[in-house]
């Protein structure tokens, strides 16, 4: 981000960067940055907390008015209050027959799980007025089937013109994750991202499918598929054996 700021400043536009990784910002030396002590993915802190978010953006914009330079990195003082787990949160109910079982039936269990989460997801959409599912452009049931077909080893063709099959697999996996995580947060409780991630990666058929698919694709001869499976399906912190 700091590099973009450098180019824009050279073209005559004042910038202030939000920094999530301070060592990177220190190396790039932008004219102005505000480091924030938040989780990656949350540059403005907690969701559904307009007052806190406004403090962050205002702190960043106020760096524009400082006289100090040519490099100024300030620090935002407060942690994200939504980083803490919510003990009141409970994941959606998934019958044990769907959430566990042999790898051989994983694909079918994924498809069944998506159906089971439909009501919870509809509640999410009603609460928030939106969903972030949609990168693949496919309905979620087709996403699940597409991912399931990959796990069955059928290497299905891309259902979308102009998008390769491995790219569509990546987008379909992203959509399945988003659907499940939205469904899991469709209650009054406010789970932390770690609570949601623990549930998704350890307890759902979707998480188990993506783990299994990653392993299967890593032994593929298709280098692009190996690249996508190795790096863009399972977060580094969730790869089995990563500790």
């Amino acid at each position, binding site marked *: *981000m*700091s*590099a*973009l*700021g*450098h*180019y*824009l*400043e*050279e*073209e005559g*536009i*004042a*910038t*202030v*960067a*939000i920094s*999530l*990784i301070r*060592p*990177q910002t220190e190396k*790039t*030396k932008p*004219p102005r940055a505000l480091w924030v*002590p938040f*989780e*990656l*993915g*949350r*540059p*403005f*802190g907690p*969701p559904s907390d*307009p007052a806190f*978010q*406004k403090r962050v*953006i205002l702190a960043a*914009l106020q760096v*524009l*008015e400082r006289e100090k*330079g*040519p490099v100024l990195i300030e620090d935002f003082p407060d*942690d994200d209050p939504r*980083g803490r787990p919510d003990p009141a949160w409970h994941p959606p109910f998934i019958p044990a027959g769907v959430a566990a079982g042999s790898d051989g039936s994983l694909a079918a269990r994924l498809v069944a799980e998506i159906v089971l989460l439909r009501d919870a997801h509809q509640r999410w959409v009603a609460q928030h*007025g*939106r*969903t*972030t599912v*949609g*990168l693949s452009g496919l309905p979620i049931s087709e996403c699940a089937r597409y991912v399931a077909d990959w796990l069955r080893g059928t290497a299905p063709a891309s259902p979308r013109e102009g998008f390769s099959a491995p*790219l569509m697999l990546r987008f379909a996996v*992203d959509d399945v994750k988003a659907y499940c*995580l939205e469904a899991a947060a469709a209650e009054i409780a406010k789970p932390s*991202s770690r609570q949601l991630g623990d549930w998704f990666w350890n307890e759902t058929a979707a998480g188990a499918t993506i783990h299994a698919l990653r392993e299967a694709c890593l032994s593929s001869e298709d280098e692009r598929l190996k690249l996508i499976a190795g790096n*863009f399906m*399972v*977060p*580094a*912190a969730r790869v089995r054996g*990563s500790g």
Partner: protein
Amino acid sequence: MTRLTDLPPAQAKRLAELECPDFATRPRVTGPALSRRRVAIVSSAGLVVRGENPFRGRDPDYRVIPADTRPEELLISHISINFDRTGFQEDWNVVFPLDRLRELAAEGTIGSVGQTHYSFMGATDPVQMESHARELAGRLKSDQVDAVILPPV
């Protein structure tokens, strides 16, 4: 809350040691008081308006996000999966604080909000983004924008 010390050691090391451009110059543009600035967001979250092409891999160009884009229209297509998406799922302002900017403009803290906002995909090599960023500067100027906030993800 996550600092680098909260991440798996290998990921923290990779992020801290990521090669970053070392620029020879230190450009620093000044401007009027905040209350007279026109502010735009240039994100690197790989944001894309629903229906437009998501970022593929490390595309070096940017996507346009008109100011009348609704929250339900904005998606993240960043290639990295090593950051939280649940915050954005609940509230787009976590990544793209357009509502907060509008509030700041309404109360007079900033002058106005740009007509158009933009997103790159931050995992791209910055050198590859340079020509696109310089071209974008022209578009920002034609919208009278004189302050840009650059959120990563």
